[in-house]
């Protein structure tokens, strides 16, 4: 391990570390544009020049590996002059449009020009202008501002795995451009905006609507998919302007999927902002008191077994536990948080978790994907798998619909019988898994929500045991969820109790008239027609399928409008924070249930968020360990045995851009659907990474 001295401070770093990385470790700031710690080193902006003793000229610290006994100086007149020279070149063609640039105020170039820029340029020649490129409905381009750092080119090739950007031409004529015929439809394209150190790539849906310093920043958690990426919600007044990722090495590194980032305009549309009651077939706006009275009337004297509740994909744990307690008080055990009917077994926690964890999947050396398209179901997690694949020595196979996952995999067909063969050791991929040091499988909701989902789950368990997927310090059995609420719901037991009905049972019961009242907590994906004549109470944030069917609508809060707990697919309890207030008369979800319980004469024993959370901890200790993964014991067998259907295994997500009430209400997501289809290039020209 070489030792070096930077600005008089000694540090010992691993061989192969570059000077800029060593300086970062010491907390010494070196300005940079092209260098990014998660991307390949390009060394083309030259801003990070430092002086190294015994070297004749300043060197680019991002591309210079450290050497034993190196003496580096980052703050000398030579360094300063060199950086000023670089800055003068960078500003040669850069327009002076900071006052109208969306990047203004959070621009690396602007900031560093304050430190290294001259007060005026010496260049008498005209500046070059570059035509803007069409990067689709999400990324606004202003290519004249581009300083050719190539971060975007490297991101889209390396991390996103859709190489459609490149630097065309040379010298003065070099332009960052998109390959003609290809579309920038990576589901991670929003990250280009964060990576761009200048205002060349900016947020198109939010363009010209904000200045960064006007925004209030609230750290929160994403609920648009089950990964639960760490986000920062930027708001102005009571409006969410944009959502940005936060660095969280364990979950999302620093990436965010396009749906999580750009569906936020859906938070302003189709909102339920006051209670409604259906009168003469029409929903009529009413007061909270009237809405509760309507529910109380209906429930009066009704047997508990005729009441049911279904939780949707973005329901928070607080609201779910409140509903669970309310229904228990009413004598009902008809609860389910698996609105797609997925055969997840609530009894064995390891059977529904992504046990190897998001970061842990980078340690796997063989992977079997079953009925899942991780690229659509969790793009950020898919980028992790791609990252692992890029390191080599990683065999991936997939049972399911063939599509581009941005890494190569062995296509095992789309028949469930293949899984049976592998589990029984009759398929060559069984040996691959068995011989791997840390083999893993990922089973998707597309597989588990089929009629034979429980059988597939049982086969996956059998395979995990037979091929040694679970061993000391390693659990390679992974369920890929698509619903942010799901793991939390299963953890706190929002599932049928003794003699209770599950989703299919509730729907069948409602059709027959056995179930008379159904509470839908943000559940819009159940088949509304199947609810028959049941009295439906919909509590949620958006006027989607559930509200259309409802007899009483209770306006709830979206994930940006409440402090709520979600458990991500790894089993990590995380909390969102209130960034804006719910619109109109809408309320935090658990408070609605609490108020309703009073009207029904069964008051719930909690009045504050703190006491609800204490109740949650009683339901499961998972909720006590915020931000930490609570691992699960491998435990008892799960799944069933039985016949397999010969239906093809497919992902449960068809259109990546529209999966939930918020994204369905989003104009931006509608534009993406029009431009890109369901995402992942699947209706477009091949990009060269296919197959």
């Amino acid at each position: 391990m070489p030792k070096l001295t930077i600005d008089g401070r000694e540090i010992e770093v691993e061989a192969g570390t570059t000077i800029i990385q060593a300086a970062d470790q010491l907390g010494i700031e070196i300005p940079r544009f092209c260098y990014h710690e998660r991307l390949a080193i390009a060394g083309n902006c030259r801003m990070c020049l430092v002086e190294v003793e015994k070297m004749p000229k300043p060197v680019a610290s991002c591309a210079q590996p450290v050497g034993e006994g190196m003496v580096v100086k980052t703050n000398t007149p030579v360094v300063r002059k060199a950086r000023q020279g670089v800055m003068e070149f960078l500003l040669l063609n850069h327009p002076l449009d900071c006052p109208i640039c969306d990047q203004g105020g959070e621009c690396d170039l602007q900031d560093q020009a304050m430190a290294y820029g001259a007060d005026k340029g010496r260049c008498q020649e005209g500046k070059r202008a570059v035509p803007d490129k069409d990067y689709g409905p999400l990324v606004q381009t202003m290519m004249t501002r581009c300083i050719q750092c190539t971060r975007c080119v490297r991101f889209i090739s390396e991390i996103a795995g859709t190489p459609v950007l490149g630097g065309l031409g040379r010298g003065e004529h070099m332009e960052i451009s998109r390959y003609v015929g290809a579309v920038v439809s990576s589901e991670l394209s929003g990250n280009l905006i964060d990576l761009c150190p200048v205002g060349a790539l900016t947020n198109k849906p939010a363009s010209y609507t904000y200045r960064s310093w006007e925004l209030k920043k609230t750290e929160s958690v994403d609920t648009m998919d089950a990964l639960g990426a760490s986000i920062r919600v930027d708001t102005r007044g009571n409006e969410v302007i944009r959502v940005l990722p936060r660095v969280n090495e364990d979950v999302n590194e620093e990436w965010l999927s396009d749906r999580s980032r750009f569906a936020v305009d859906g938070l302003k549309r189709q909102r339920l902002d006051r209670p409604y009651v259906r009168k003469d077939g029409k929903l009529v706006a009413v007061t909270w008191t009237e809405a509760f009275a309507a529910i109380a009337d209906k429930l009066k004297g009704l047997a508990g077994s005729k009441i049911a509740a279904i939780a949707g994909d973005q329901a928070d744990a607080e609201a779910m536990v409140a509903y669970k307690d309310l229904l228990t008080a009413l004598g009902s055990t008809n609860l389910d948080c698996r609105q797609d009917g997925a055969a997840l077994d609530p009894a064995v926690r390891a059977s529904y978790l992504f046990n190897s964890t998001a970061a842990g999947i980078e340690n796997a050396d063989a992977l079997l994907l079953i009925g899942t398209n991780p690229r659509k179901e969790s793009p950020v997690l898919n980028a992790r798998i791609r990252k692992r694949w890029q390191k080599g020595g990683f065999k991936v196979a997939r049972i399911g619909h063939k599509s581009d996952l941005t890494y190569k995999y062995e296509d095992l067909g789309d028949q469930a019988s293949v899984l049976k063969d592998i589990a029984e050791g009759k398929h060559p991929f069984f040996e691959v898994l068995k011989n791997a040091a840390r083999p893993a499988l990922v089973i998707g909701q597309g597989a588990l929500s089929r009629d034979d989902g429980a059988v597939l789950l049982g086969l996956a368990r059998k395979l995990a045991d037979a091929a040694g997927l679970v061993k000391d310090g390693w659990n390679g059995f992974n369920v890929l969820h698509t619903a942010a609420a799901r793991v939390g719901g299963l953890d706190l037991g929002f599932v049928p109790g003794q003699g209770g009905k599950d989703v299919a049972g509730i729907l069948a019961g409602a059709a027959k008239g056995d179930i008379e009242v159904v509470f839908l907590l943000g559940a819009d994906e159940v088949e509304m027609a199947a609810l028959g004549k049941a009295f439906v109470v919909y509590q949620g944030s958006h006027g989607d399928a559930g509200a259309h069917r409802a007899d009483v609508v209770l306006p709830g809060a979206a994930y940006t409008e409440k402090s709520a707990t979600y458990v991500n697919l790894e089993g990590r309890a995380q909390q969102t924070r209130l960034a804006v207030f719910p619109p109109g008369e809408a309320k935090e979800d658990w408070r609605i249930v609490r108020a309703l319980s009073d009207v029904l004469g069964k008051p719930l024993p909690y009045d504050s968020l703190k006491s609800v959370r204490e109740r949650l901890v009683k339901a499961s200790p998972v909720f006590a360990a915020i931000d930490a993964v609570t691992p699960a014991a491998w435990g008892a067998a799960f799944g069933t045995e039985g016949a397999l259907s010969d239906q093809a295994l497919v992902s449960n997500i068809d259109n990546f851009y529209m999966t939930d009430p918020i994204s369905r209400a989003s104009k931006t997501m509608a534009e993406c659907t029009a431009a890109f289809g369901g995402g992942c290039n699947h209706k477009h020209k091949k990009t060269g990474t296919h197959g």
Partner: protein
Amino acid sequence: MSDMTHEPASFAFTAEYQAKADAFIAKYPAGRQQSAVMPLLDLAQRQDGWVSRAAMEVIAGLLDMAPIRVEEVATFYTMYNRKPVGKFHVQVCTNLPCMLRGSDDVVAAAKAALGVEFGDMTTDGLFTLSEVECLGACVNAPMMQINDDYYEDLDADSTKAVLEAFKRGETPKPGPQNGRQFSCPAGGPTSLTELTFQTEKA
């Protein structure tokens, strides 16, 4: 970047060029085929006279790389033509040594002889006239390159003569056009004038 109107719908190497392409690809170890991108672009240009987008896609497919990576290479190097050129691609150097030795006359003569400006193709599709940077033949300045051959030590008359010969379907002898032997001193030997190989032997 380029004018899309020329772009053909498809491209395929002929059997002869495909064999050459395979030979280039075989030079590199498995997984490193991308190294063959420059020779393959050259082959495509030799076959069609220029590199079309369709050709780049075929090459990308052969080398298992993204088409944008091929386009980056093709647009970086100016010697890959991204537009169709005539049967004879006349490239006149106008860099400093050639200019000092009279490339302005050469340019004027070429423009007059072909009746086109820089960057244009003659209507019969025979000639494209281009202005290029140094081609490394300064010792025989001024010069122009026609397809693979250098025509050097030009003046207005010899430029015209070379181009007229091409028009007639002849192929003039490449190299210096003023009777000079390669790059030996233009005015004959100036040193060691008495010493010859014969006397040295004797």
